[in-house]
């Protein structure tokens, strides 16, 4: 709670939270608030520009762009959130375990995470669609698995140095169970880093979901998604060169807010106080700060 209050004091975080709240609202109520049926084809008004009847114009079969944007928010956002949840559920516990149990598991878990990093998102998602079938669940699980190394590495890096910290040793000497120490001391230090990573990863997952929809993977048309709308706009760039702007702007606002929020969380909670090898003046408090400490 105090973190939220601290966040609210940072102007950029306030802006980001407002935008994200609006997007969340759209995701829940977007379909109900939409002025038109997102699937209804107004065949007389095909490829119209913005007007009173259709605030953002119509697409190539005459569907209302605004309504499709509002309805499409749900699938786009839910998909990204699901992927990040899967990634976090896989990555955070394995990161904690690998940092806690030390070198016994370290080598092989690191190699697994290396392997997952090597596989490109889109190619892997295509392969999953080709073998396990094309669906939103398959695509999101695939992305979640590929995202998990990020959580794994961040968690591991944050937890690694804590094993030898004096207060952890003191707790162990006083007879605290491993589980208690983990929950009480380690988790509090790891959580801010995980939160920052989750915000970044959600933004990135939104982009990946959009990319997959663009390739025709995941959500099947005519159900609207941001990426799907962009991909259908592609065929009509000559007639409507401005059409991709609306979904792109909405996406930029969402992903940008998530990135701003991540930076603000880092600032408010001091997530960068994770053990780092070199402390060096890095003026841009951006994501490069998440230095790995694998070498230690």
């Amino acid at each position, binding site marked *: 709670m105090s973190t939220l209050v601290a966040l609210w004091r940072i102007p950029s975080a306030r802006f980001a939270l407002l935008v994200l709240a609006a997007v969340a609202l759209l995701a829940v109520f977007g379909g109900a608030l939409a002025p038109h049926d997102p699937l209804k084809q107004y065949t007389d008004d095909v490829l119209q520009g913005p007007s009173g009847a259709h605030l953002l114009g119509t697409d190539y079969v005459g569907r209302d762009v605004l309504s499709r944007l509002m309805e499409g928010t749900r699938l786009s956002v839910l998909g990204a959130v699901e992927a990040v949840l899967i990634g976090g559920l896989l990555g955070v516990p394995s990161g904690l375990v690998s940092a806690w149990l030390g070198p016994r598991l370290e080598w092989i878990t690191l*190699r*697994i995470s*290396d*392997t997952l*990093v*090597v*596989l*490109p*998102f*889109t*190619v*892997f998602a*295509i*392969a*999953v*669609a*080709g*073998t*396990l079938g*094309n669906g939103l669940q398959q695509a999101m699980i695939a992305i979640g698995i590929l*995202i998990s*190394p*990020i959580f794994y*590495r961040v968690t591991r*890096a944050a937890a690694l140095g804590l094993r030898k910290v004096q207060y952890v040793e003191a707790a162990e000497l006083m007879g605290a169970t491993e589980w208690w120490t983990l929950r009480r001391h380690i988790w509090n230090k790891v959580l801010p880093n995980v939160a920052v*990573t989750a915000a*970044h*990863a959600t*933004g*990135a997952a939104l*982009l990946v979901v*959009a*990319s997959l929809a*663009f*390739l*025709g993977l995941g959500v099947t048309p005519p159900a609207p998604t941001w*990426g799907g709308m*962009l*991909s259908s706009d*592609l065929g009509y*760039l000559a007639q409507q060169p401005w059409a*991709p702007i609306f979904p*792109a702007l909405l*996406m*930029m606002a969402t*992903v*940008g807010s998530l*990135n701003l929020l991540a930076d603000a969380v880092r600032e408010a909670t001091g997530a960068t106080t994770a053990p*780092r*090898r070199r402390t060096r003046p890095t*003026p841009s408090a*951006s*994501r*490069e700060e*998440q*230095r*790995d*400490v*694998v*070498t230690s």
Partner: protein
Amino acid sequence: MTLVASAPAPPAAPAALAPDGAGAAVRRTLPALRSFASVAAVTVTVLLLASVVTFALGALSDSNPAAAALGETATPADIARLDHEFGLDRPLPQQYLSWVGNALTGDLGRSWFTTIPVADSIRTALPVDLSIASLALVLAILIGGGAGIGAALSNGGVVDRAVTLVCSLLGTLPPFVIGMALIVVFAVKLQLLPAGGYVPIQADPLEWLRFAILPALALSLDVAASIARQLRTSLVGELHENYAVGAEMRGFGRRRVLFGHVLRNAAGPTLAVIGLAIPLIIGGAVMTEKLFGLPGVAQLSLQAAEKGDVPVVLGTLLVTAVVVVIASLVVNLLQVLLNPVARRGSGATGAAR
């Protein structure tokens, strides 16, 4: 895209132990050998795991050659016959071993539909991706490097802020939107460049460049942004180090210090960012292929995925993983050449990322 860029950046190299005395040469070569061995072990493990993941996808799949080729009309007898023909009735470990063994000799099986060897299809499609990805990488280094150096030189100034702003904006857009914007500007409005199509580089390099420049540019901007951001951060950091300040105090110009001393040291983390960006570039090539209608691996893989042509899908995934691993190794090697300290320690972990 921001995803892998937000993954951990390069491991900070541990302080080197100064070699002293007669055993210095031995002490210098021994860690190099050991790190070579560990890099090899990591690479082999990663490739092995990648092949297991790929094969597991195929094994979990419920599509079979008969259903793929004959559709609904396939009888159980057909299924059994074709399964036997493609060796799918053998136990899974045996299938895996023969698949990997064949893959090592360059045989990835045959397509269930056309029975064309998968390796042949990939061999014709791969140069498209590789040439465009390499051009994109060159563009990304030029654009990102230029922007990063410019931003570091005007630390806090207008250029710096502009570069930072553009980089953050680029990070919030999926790469295909950038490609669409480029199509609108260069193909639709200015009518300068074609919006799609491809000419092989062997046929006509100039014509190839005309077709390849837009896809490559679309692919590179994202990576250029992360290069610029990292280069700026490490350059600004290095410029505060004692040796840089000292050089400046001795009367060297800012530029001379930057290009002569600092850039070499700042390049390490930037190279690591490039290494992390390679899967992004290869994965992004899939998007640009679709966007610009290029006859590359992704089209092959997408078409195969639609039909359920498992061998082709698995082959493309495996080849992509191998390409990424090789490219990462090259980047890793460059890093080692640039910074002898990185030879110790980080060799083991930084290899296949």
